[in-house]
């Protein structure tokens, strides 16, 4: 029973929280990418996608994070809300 509890609580132990936070912050530190760089990428992505789709520019969220698989490699993730699909 004790072991089961331990097993269940494994992911929320404070050292795992620290480890996860550290991994994420190191991805940013190591990528050495400035907010200006992200803004430039954001601008280019918006321009390109706007040609095909109506997007919600205020709701656009783009960030460097890590892949959700075990390897946790750096990943550029963009969340782009769509207002409407544009007709040809």
């Amino acid at each position, binding site marked *: 029973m004790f072991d089961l509890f331990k097993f269940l609580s494994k992911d929320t*132990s404070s*050292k795992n929280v620290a*480890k996860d936070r550290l991994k994420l912050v190191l991805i940013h530190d190591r990528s050495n990418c400035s907010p200006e760089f992200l803004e430039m990428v954001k601008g280019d992505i918006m321009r390109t996608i706007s040609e095909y789709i109506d997007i919600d520019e205020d709701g656009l969220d783009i960030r460097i994070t890590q892949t959700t698989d075990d390897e946790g490699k750096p990943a550029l993730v963009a969340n782009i809300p769509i207002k409407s699909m544009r007709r040809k």
Partner: protein
Amino acid sequence: MGEVIVITSGKGGVGKTTTTANLGAGLALEGKKVVVIDADIGLRNLDVVLGLENRIVYDIVDVVSKTCEPKKALIKDRRFDGLFLLPAAQTRDKDAVTEAQMVELCNSLKEEFDFVLVDCPAGIEQGFKNAIAGADRAIVVTTPEISAVRDADRIIGLLEAHDLRDPELIVNRIRIDMVKRGDMMNISDMTDILNIDIIGIVPDDEQIVISTNRGEPAVKEMESMSGKAYRNITKRVIGEEIPFLELEIQEGFMDKVMKIFSFRR
């Protein structure tokens, strides 16, 4: 020809100076000829940790500016045969020494000494650049805290950018009780994240405070856990294969248990 080892960390207060003092004394106990250099100009501390603060006449700035001969500035530690200290200047700033001067100093000292240990200041500015300039090898000290590990990662990147490949890690102030209950990162957590080889683990130990109060390196305290940890690190630095962590931690833990059941005093 000796070897120049820089002891660095990025973050302050993780135990660079204590590590330098103990490693220096440990190497001397192993029969090596060692000089420890305090590169933290303006915040001199290696002298007090070693208990040699009353014997300073000249300092590193006097040596690099050729005001005095290196030999004259070196303080011989009478307790540890073969250990010498080159103190930092206390009333100057980091710019009082240049990288080129550090390289020259390290190169001349390693002709005569088996080991030249450089105690690096915290930070990544000029003081850091000076301290690593003449180094052949780097040891990074960290504690199991998120801030210290993050800074260690940054330092490892900078060391590699300066061609100090494969730095080795010392994890200081680990608390086995907290590791066991999952409230402190363990050794493999840290080596996974930092992706570097470990050369030692030092348990959080009251003895360090006591030794530092007295100005006597803990490495000579046969009874203390930290003393043993530093002796093991010393042996690994000179290339001996000393079995690792798990055991070391277990032993430390058992020591603690023994102490609780008052086998001491």
